[in-house]
Structure formats: C-alpha cells, structure tokens
C-alpha cells in the first residue's frame, strides 16, 4: 500500500558520497595514518605519516535519540570540529578535531548535556541493541530499557579504561538476534518460553499454511482443521519457542507476559585477534522480565563483569578468559547454576560434549 507520488522523482541515487563528510585533515591523510594512542578514556589521537593529528572524542549514546539530540551533537561539531562528526559501529558519537586544545572544552560541553565520554580501549563500550517494545512486534522484552538499566550499573566501566581488556555487550529482544548477540562478550537475549497460541479463525486467512508448517526447525507444526477451518497445531513438546512460525504467520503470537524473560550469554567475540571468532554460550537460561530496571539481569551481568575484571589477564577477552580457567570455574565464580538447559540438544549438539579426559579438579 504505497502513497501518492510526488514529482519529479529521483530514485536509486544511493547514499551521498562519503568524501564530502570527511574533516579536511582526514581527507588529506586518508589511507596515510601511522598509529593511534589514547590520551584518556574516550579520547584518541590518530597520527598520520605527514605528522598531522586528528583527535577523536567518543560519546555514549542511547541510540534511540530524537532529532533534538542529533541537533545538539551537530551544534557541538560546529563549535569544536569544523562541523564534522561521525557515529561508530556501536552507535557512539565521535567528535573529531585537529585541535588538541578543543578537547577539554568539548568534553565539558558534552558532559554538561548529560552525555558521557568514554568507551575506548579497555572499557565497556555502548551496548549494541535492537527495537524491543519500542517498535518490534516480535520482542520478548524492551532492550532500550534493559540497556539503560545495564549501562547505569556499568557506567564506571564506560568512562574508565580499567578492565583487563575490552568488553563488548549486546542485547536483542528475540531469537532473531538483530543485535550481535550471538558473538558478544556478554549478551542479553529476550526469550519466549511458551508455544504460540494459535488463532484458528485467522490462520487460513492471513497465513500460508505450507510455509508455516515448514518454518518450524523442529517440525512441531502440523496442518489441522478446527471447526471446519484449515489451521495448524503445534506439538508443545517439540516447540523450543524460536518464534519463526510467528514471523511467517501473524496468527501464531508467541509473546506471553507470564513466560517471556531474559537469558544471558557469554564469551563470544568477532575479532580475529589471538583466538578465532566465537559464538556466545549460555550462562543463565532464564531471568524474569522485570521492568523498568531488570535488577536480576543487571545483578547477574555485574557478577560476570566483576569476575572477569578480577581474574582475567591483559588482552584477554571474556571468552578467552573462560577458556583458560575452564567453564566449571566460571560457574563456580559467578555462582550461576549449571543445568540441563546449558547442554546443547539441537542439531550439532554432540559436537559440544566434552570428549577428552582433560579435566581440571
């Protein structure tokens, strides 16, 4: 259902060319950078072969921001950065200037607006996250709120660089994992725990039954007829609440106030540094959905962060640390219970069983 056209119409023009958005010092030294250094938390300098320098001040952002906030950053860019700024792949804002003397006043102004400077080096940077109850129909929780609650608790780690190494968090509101949840140091994941409730009257009208049936990874869905209407039924025992059926068939809502909640995952990474990229692994299978502050979730995350902070080596990502000390030790140190849910039972489960006599006592 598209709306009225306006004339004359330009299409397929793509994004503006990036060059016009580059600070002159960046444009001049493009591809000619030599090294970088941290001046303090949130402040980096990049030095070019030419000797030129560009200073970047990184600012934490909730990502869900209004035009007012964007304009505020635009004003700061005008005042200190010749009108140039950028966002990072973690949704932080970076204000860049070639004038070292601008740094401190800029930081002051930023902080006065209630925004924190940090997120560089051995810190917890911004949390990658997704829509939650703010915009998505699939959400099992609200990640904007979870992120706010969590970052309030972890604030000290954002504005300082006191961790053994960088710690990357992500949050996603359902198993689709639009955030980088499957490969983060710590991941917060909204989950469903109850099979979809089927609106039998609607199924045949709004869904393609064969597509719906085949959407289920565990073949839990079968076609059926209820009161003369074609619909589907779910074998509860085979359902693991992935919601893929709901994605293709709106008549199978799965969100459920009593049963939705949060799971926590740890030890993933993306970079190729030292160890290969790895997936996150289950740490806590279920915590209650407890807005507005999700205290059970933030408590558990703090336990993980503190165990890591106290025990990891320099340059050791969370997953690398756990691999060194061993998973039994991790569960010991955090006090999390190890349950049968931690043991994989999906497709390649058997690849995760411990198949050696190498055991720590």
């Amino acid at each position, binding site marked *: 259902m*598209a709306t*009225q*056209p*306006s004339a004359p*119409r*330009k*299409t*397929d023009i793509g*994004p*503006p060319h*990036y060059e016009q*958005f*580059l600070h002159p010092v*960046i444009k001049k030294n493009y*591809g000619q*950078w030599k*090294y970088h250094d941290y001046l303090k938390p949130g402040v980096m300098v990049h030095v070019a072969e030419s000797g030129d320098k560009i200073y*970047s001040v990184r600012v934490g*952002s*909730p*990502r*869900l921001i*209004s*035009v*007012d906030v964007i*304009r505020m950053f635009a004003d700061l860019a005008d005042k200190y950065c010749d*009108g*140039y*700024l*950028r966002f990072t*792949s973690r*949704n932080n804002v970076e204000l860049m200037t070639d004038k070292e003397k601008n740094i401190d006043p800029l930081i002051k102004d930023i902080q006065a607006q209630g925004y*924190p400077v940090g997120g560089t080096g051995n810190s917890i940077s911004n949390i990658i996250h997704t829509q939650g*109850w703010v*915009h998505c*129909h699939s959400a099992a929780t*609200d990640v904007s*709120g979870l992120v*706010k609650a969590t970052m309030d608790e972890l*604030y000290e780690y954002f504005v300082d660089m006191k961790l053994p190494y960088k710690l990357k968090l992500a949050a996603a509101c359902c198993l*689709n*994992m*639009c955030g*980088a*949840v*499957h490969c983060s140091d710590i991941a917060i994941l909204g989950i469903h725990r109850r099979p979809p409730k089927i609106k039998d009257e609607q199924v045949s009208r709004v869904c393609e039954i064969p597509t719906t049936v085949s959407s289920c990874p565990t073949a839990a869905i079968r076609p059926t007829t209820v009161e003369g209407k074609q619909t589907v039924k779910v074998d509860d025992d085979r359902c693991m609440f992935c919601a*893929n059926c*709901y*994605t*293709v068939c*709106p008549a199978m809502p799965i*969100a459920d106030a009593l049963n939705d909640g949060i799971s926590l995952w740890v030890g993933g990474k*993306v970079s190729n*540094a*030292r160890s290969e*990229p790895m997936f996150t692994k289950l740490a806590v299978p279920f915590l209650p*959905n407890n807005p*507005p502050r999700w205290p059970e979730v933030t408590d558990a995350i703090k336990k993980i962060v503190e165990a890591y902070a106290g025990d990891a080596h320099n*340059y050791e990502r969370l997953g690398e640390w756990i691999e060194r000390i061993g998973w039994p030790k991790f569960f010991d140190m955090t006090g999390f219970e190890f349950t049968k849910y931690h043991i994989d039972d*999906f497709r390649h489960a058997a690849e995760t069983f411990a198949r050696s006599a190498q055991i720590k006592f």
Partner: protein
Amino acid sequence: MANHKLRKTPLLDDLQKGPWPSFVKDMKQIAVRKPMVNDLLGQLELSYKERVGHWKHGGLVGVIGYGGGVIGRYSDAPEQFPDVAHFHTIRVNQPSGWFYTSQALRDLCDIWEAHGSGMTNMHGSTGDCVFLGTTSEELEPIFAKLTEKDWDLGGSGSDVRTPSCCNGMARCEYACYDTMDVCYNITMEYQDELHRPAFPYKWKFKFSGCPNDCVASIARSDLSVIGTWRDDIRIDQAAVKAYADAGMDIRADVTRKCPTACMRYDGKEIHVNNKQCNRCMHCINAMPKALRPGKDTGATILIGGKAPIIEGALLSSVLVPFMKMDKADDYQEFKDLMERIWDFWDDHGVNRERIGECIERVGLGNFLEAIEVDPKPEHVKHPRTNPYIFYEEYFEDDGTDA
C-alpha cells in the same frame, strides 16, 4: 505548546534517573510537541506494566517503485494510542563509515521533524539511519525530500541490505583496503538489488579493513570482506625498544599471546616468522607504534554469516583467501564473483534460506565448483573426518566411466 495530554509513565520515569543518558527523558521532551511520541510512551508504559509488546505484525508499506526500505508497523491498541496506530520506520542509507557534516544531519532532522515522530535510531543494527515512526501518507513526501537532499532508502526484505563498513582508511592505520570506497561503490552498483527484493532471502554485505573486524562482518553478513596482507609485518625496532623502556612486558603481553607462536622477543628486538603468522592482528594491536600490517594488502572474502534462525547461527567461512581490492579496476574481480554467486543462488536457493544455509545444504565443495572457485585447504578448518565421500565416478565392469 502541546494540545495533547501528556501520558503518565511512572514505570518509565524510573529510567530518567541514573548516569547513562536516558531515552525516556529525551522522548518525554519531544513528546511535548509530538503526539506520536506521547502515545509511543503511553504504549511503552503499558508494555512495561503488562510485560508484553503491543505492536502488530508489520504489513507491506513502501514508496513507489521500491520493495524495501520501510517497515510497516501498527499498534494492537489503536483506540488507546491513536497516534501510533500507524508507526512505520524508514531506513535511510547511511554514508560510508557513518561520517556526516552537521549540515547533513540537520537536513535529515528537518525532514523527520516535518513528517515523522522525530525519533530515530542512529543507527540501526544493519547500519541504516533509522527514522522511527510515521504514517503511510508521509512516505512519499519524505522520500521526495530525502532524494532532493541526495539521500536514498536502505534495504529491507529479500534484497541486498544496506552495506556498511568500518571507518577504514579515513581514520585507521590498520586498513588494508579502502572499505569506505568499496562500500560506496558496491552500494551504487547494486541499487536495483537493494531497492527491489528479488532474492530468496536477505543479503548483507559488510566491509572491515582488517581482521579486527570492527563492523562484525564475519558474524553479521552474508558476504564479509575483511582486510589482510600477504607480505611481512612491518617492524620499527626503535619503537619496540620504546615500548620496552616504557615498561611494557613484551613477552607476556605480545609474543606469548601470539596464537601461532611465530614471534620471538630477544630482549631487544622482535622477530616474526611471517610464513607462520596468521594475520590475527594481536601483536599489531598491542604495539601500534612499532608494528604494522605489510604493504601487499587486500582482503579475505568470506561467505554465509548470520544469526541463529533457522539452523543455528553461522560465522562466515573463507571463500577467497586473498583478493586485491582493485579500485583502478572498479573492483571488477569482486563483482564478477558476486555475479557467479547470485547466479548460483538464483538456481539453488530456497525461500527464506540464507546463502550460508544454502551452501551447507548443497555442500561447500559443490558450491565452489558451481561458482568456479578452486577448492583449497584454506576453505576448511581441516579436511573431512568422516569417510562418507560421494565419489562422483566409478568404472563400469567394462572399464568405462559411469
């Protein structure tokens, strides 16, 4: 100023407290002039109270001639929250590396102030600048104003999704190819594929300038391009000495953490066995002033990364161990490869199956054969361990091939 009644949001109000910037505070401010945001807060408060979302499954909405770029969204309680009865998002294709001028941002803000909620995601997980919340009527006017200012929409649905890249050569000394240029070039090349969904499922490109992979391309894109080099790590021994003098424990923090054990520090200098080095970046990360990637740079092309639905998450796997990303040649080698892959996908892909799953189903060996890439040991962690080999030929009793 507001002629609408501001919603009471006791639960959300708690999130105005605390040191981290508050989206609630921000929204409350803009809600004063934006009824849409006011109702958004109202509905969100209801979700916080009931612990369940209140959006309906999205419908198909969009701008004329495009199949993607807009996500339709409707409230399931429109009587209660009429101003978010329709609440679609628009994905605006961000510039390479998320660099902006203040002016460009103001242009975007003005458009959104005029035609939408005024709330955004800067940025969406895929990389777009996301305009959060408008009605179907506003889509064409927004699109007209965006294109007038040289902006275009990003992808959604079964198409090329908005490509993204790290800041690369713009501000990083590690960049082994020009991520921002490739990202721009590829985005322009595939405008049709981006705007008019015709694939079996979504297709994501992400470009990282080095193996640190700052856009998480290996985890979150169907086609991941990660910079690397083939020659030797450049070493500035004087700078090594400076690190040592400054108190760095080079053995503990650098050489002993090298995953291939190909580095040695003799107390004065660092020695690297470059044939053994796997370009992990660790030593360079730890000593950026002393160590640098080599000069024969290019990229490793990997394929198939994705989130868990349906068969479990996949990291991208090696497709081409090394490709020069040749700007002078307009990245033709890369585009030719894409052509062959998409031809294959056209023939073999099934609906809602990502390329990574498709390759898994068809077999990596068969896939490589089809796209004319020679199988190499680099493609695998290790050769097969099971003896279940589908030998394709056997001799008939008369000695001929069957």
